[in-house]
């Protein structure tokens, strides 16, 4: 166990940690005061770029680079969106931050708006976080009162308004252009890119969308400096020119079959097994892990033999997963059927597919139908190949859909089939002993029955 002292979570165990006075007493808004006094927006962008901070929301795109795509000298308005639509199954770190340390989120937002010259920020908050909503609301009110928000913040010529925009139960709103459409009052169908939001985003104006945890990292980068940030985590692989590295602290949300589920802050790169054993108190009921989701369901599965994998941005990829995702680590013990994982995951994505692109809309539902049939004891061995092919078509072949939701739907299928094929075949043989070899189309079902 490392002796790492949490930074992002340093405040959350204090009493009334969500209140301004407590946050300020712990050094809150120091970074904002200092930055507004000493740094120009360009300098802030430069610092964040130099830090190597990569987005914590799942795509791991370099934050400073994203900011630098904004058109120079734009007359405005420029909009800033905080992606607080945390909906990836297995992911809850943003919730903890917003509930227990809303001012840290706000300080990160204010700093990032200063850097990007945004004059209005919207926090897109999923509706299922009522406590976070109340805490953020109160914190915003405190900020206006204290001069951290509104006109001429802390006497500078920088002004900012922050509004909370609550979602309504749609996973796709976590996709940045889906989020933008949703704020605009439309169905959250992601936009085709280009144009990218930095050029034409919310209300057709330049827009930046950043994740909650990413913004809290910005606070500490500006407070403690680039060197501190890069002293944590994993530097880029010198042999891979495209690796942007995995610097900084990271919140790992541990859940599933572990003894101590919760949020753990560690430098990027902790080994999965270490996280489970040292921090999570090991797999529950004295069992062994069968599989682990490294970063939200959409990243797929790691098998027990892959638990040595470092949980940085490159680690899960090296064992055939989509990526680190949201670092929502879900542990599944040795008794948990992989077919249930697959079914659960496919049900989620079929339910949450926005229904815009053909392969995702139809493919996620098709995969679910097949899994329903397998679970109903009418599976066939050929179904597994078909599932693999559907997965390829919706999200493995790059570019088949507008956004990444379909990728997220495909990787659980792909990794489960690749790593747990024997178990799945056994399941089909066992549950459908007379028909598992059957080929050809399944029996016809009237659409009215299944709609």
């Amino acid at each position, binding site marked *: 166990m490392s002796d790492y002292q949490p930074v992002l979570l340093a405040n959350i165990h204090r009493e009334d940690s969500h209140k301004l006075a407590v946050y300020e007493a712990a050094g809150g808004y120091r970074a904002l005061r200092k930055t507004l006094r000493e740094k120009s927006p360009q300098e802030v962008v430069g610092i964040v770029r130099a830090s190597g901070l990569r987005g914590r929301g799942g795509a791991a795109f370099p934050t400073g680079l994203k900011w630098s795509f904004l058109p120079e000298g734009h007359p405005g308005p420029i909009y800033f969106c905080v992606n607080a639509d945390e909906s990836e199954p*297995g992911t*809850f770190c943003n919730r903890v931050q917003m509930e227990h340390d809303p001012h840290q989120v706000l300080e990160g937002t204010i700093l990032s708006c200063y850097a990007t010259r945004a004059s209005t920020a919207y926090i897109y908050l999923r509706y299922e976080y009522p406590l976070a909503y109340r805490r953020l609301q109160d914190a915003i009110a405190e900020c206006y009162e204290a001069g951290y928000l509104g006109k001429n913040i802390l006497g500078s010529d920088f002004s900012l308004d922050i509004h909370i925009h*609550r*979602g309504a139960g749609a*996973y796709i709103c976590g996709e940045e252009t889906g989020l933008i459409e949703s704020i605009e009052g439309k169905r959250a169908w992601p936009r085709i890119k280009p144009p990218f939001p930095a050029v034409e985003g919310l209300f057709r104006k330049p827009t930046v969308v950043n994740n909650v945890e990413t913004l809290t990292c910005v606070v500490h980068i500006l407070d403690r400096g680039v060197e501190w940030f890069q002293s944590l985590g994993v530097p880029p692989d010198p042999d891979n020119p495209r690796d942007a590295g995995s610097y900084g602290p990271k919140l790992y949300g541990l*859940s599933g079959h572990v003894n101590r589920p919760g949020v753990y802050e560690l430098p990027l790169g902790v080994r999965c097994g270490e996280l489970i054993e040292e921090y999570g108190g090991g797999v529950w009921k004295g069992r062994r892990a069968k599989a682990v989701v490294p970063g939200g369901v959409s990243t797929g599965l790691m098998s027990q033999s892959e638990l040595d994998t470092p949980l940085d941005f490159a680690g899960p990829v090296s064992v055939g997963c989509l990526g680190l995702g949201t670092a929502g680590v879900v542990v599944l013990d040795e008794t948990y059927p992989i077919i249930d994982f697959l079914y659960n995951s496919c*049900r989620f994505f079929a339910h949450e597919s926005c229904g815009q692109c053909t392969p995702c809309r139809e493919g996620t539902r098709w995969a679910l139908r097949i899994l329903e049939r397998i679970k109903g004891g009418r599976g066939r061995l050929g179904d597994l190949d078909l599932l693999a092919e559907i997965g390829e078509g919706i999200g493995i072949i790059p570019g088949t859909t507008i956004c990444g939701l379909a990728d997220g739907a495909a990787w659980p299928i792909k990794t489960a089939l690749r790593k747990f094929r024997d178990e799945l075949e056994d399941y089909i043989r066992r549950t459908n002993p007379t028909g598992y070899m059957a080929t050809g189309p399944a029996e016809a079902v009237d659409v009215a029955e299944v709609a």
Partner: protein
Amino acid sequence: MSTTRRGLSERLVEEIEGLLPRYPTRRAALLPALHLVQEELGRVPHEAVVGLAELLGLKPAEVEDTLTFYGFFRQDEPLGRVRVWVCRSLSCSCRGGEELLEYLGQKLGIRPGQTTPDGRVTLEVAECLGACDYAPAMLADGTLHKNLTKGKIDAFVESIRQDASSGGLPGA
């Protein structure tokens, strides 16, 4: 409740108009406005769709397009006084969330999506409540119920019964 010709009460119209300064377009107020309507009426009825369209400078089909996309809004059947979301995503499911969902459904005598005949509870399934650290979890209105067990569900159902019989629930 006084109703304006728009199918929205005066208070709602006022509240929705209060949202408008936050956004550069009237349409952007649609999602928060839908929340306000559903909070007050327990659903978003047809007249409110027409009313919102008029208020926000949209066509009724644009309002309904948005509202039906999100799983959150009800059009025809009003919600129960308590709306319960039981999470069925991986972290909750693997710790018994789906069994507890079924158990709660049996206790209430309804299936997910339905409302008890007395209008007290609407049962819903949630796709990840983001409370995986407290799995299995359930959200009842503004309250998160953590580390659910059958015992906790029993107690929850009992508390609703008592609230209802004592008239303690808002609107009861």
